[in-house]
């Protein structure tokens, strides 16, 4: 396996992992009824921005510009995570939402973004000669991963509209704004 092919496979794996993480967040939201806060949504959007860079690599071939998109997305996502960590850093503050292996999800989110930045640095080192043009491999698995990513982005768009509508999201959301409005409309009729 040459380096270019390995880098392509790792990009595919990274996009699959991002899709899985976003899917896990959806499971928590739907199954356990935990509505995402505005900063949680920003972290999800950061992950999606990271995924856009990988998607560009998979669709158009590996280029430093695409890794730049990934790195910028990771930096903004990490900033949102740090913001939330700092909001709950005071002694005695229980933090927001549940913990997972002893840390809150926003802390794991920060760790993830740092790992992504490190991973992209490794991927940039993997190849010393970038070629623009068609991707190295374009199999069914990669196609499925790209389509799944599109579906999860659409899911986040719909979910955010249902939760916040066209206005600013509540700081500590407890209900879906649009879903409640719709149910009230149906009950009124």
């Amino acid at each position, binding site marked *: 396996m040459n380096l270019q092919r390995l880098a392509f496979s790792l990009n595919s794996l990274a996009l699959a992992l991002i899709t899985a993480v976003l899917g896990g967040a959806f499971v928590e939201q739907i199954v356990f009824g935990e509505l995402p806060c505005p900063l949680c949504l920003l972290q999800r959007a950061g992950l999606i921005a990271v995924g856009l860079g990988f998607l*560009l690599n998979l669709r158009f071939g590996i280029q430093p510009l695409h890794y730049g*998109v990934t790195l910028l997305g990771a930096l903004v996502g990490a900033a949102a995570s740090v*913001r939330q960590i700092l909001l709950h850093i005071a002694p005695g503050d229980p933090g927001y939402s549940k913990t997972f292996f002893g840390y809150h999800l926003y802390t794991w989110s920060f760790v993830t973004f740092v790992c992504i930045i490190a991973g992209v640095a490794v991927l940039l080192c993997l190849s010393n000669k970038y070629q623009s043009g068609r991707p190295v491999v374009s199999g069914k698995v990669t196609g499925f991963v790209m389509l799944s990513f599109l579906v999860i982005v659409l899911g986040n768009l719909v979910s955010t509209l249902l939760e916040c509508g066209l206005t600013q999201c509540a700081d500590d959301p407890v209900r879906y704004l649009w879903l409640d409005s719709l149910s009230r409309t149906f009950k009124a009729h």
Partner: protein
Amino acid sequence: MYIVFLLAFISCLLILSGRDRIGVTTSLITIAVLAGVLVHHMTDKLPISL
């Protein structure tokens, strides 16, 4: 907040439909808007309601 996901979805569609340059451009716009919304969340000073 929806505007970030809407832009990301449009970026995905453009990338998957094979539009290279506009796909990169909309991805960068998505990140810029995301950063703007984060700044707005921290300062509450920007004249937006997203």
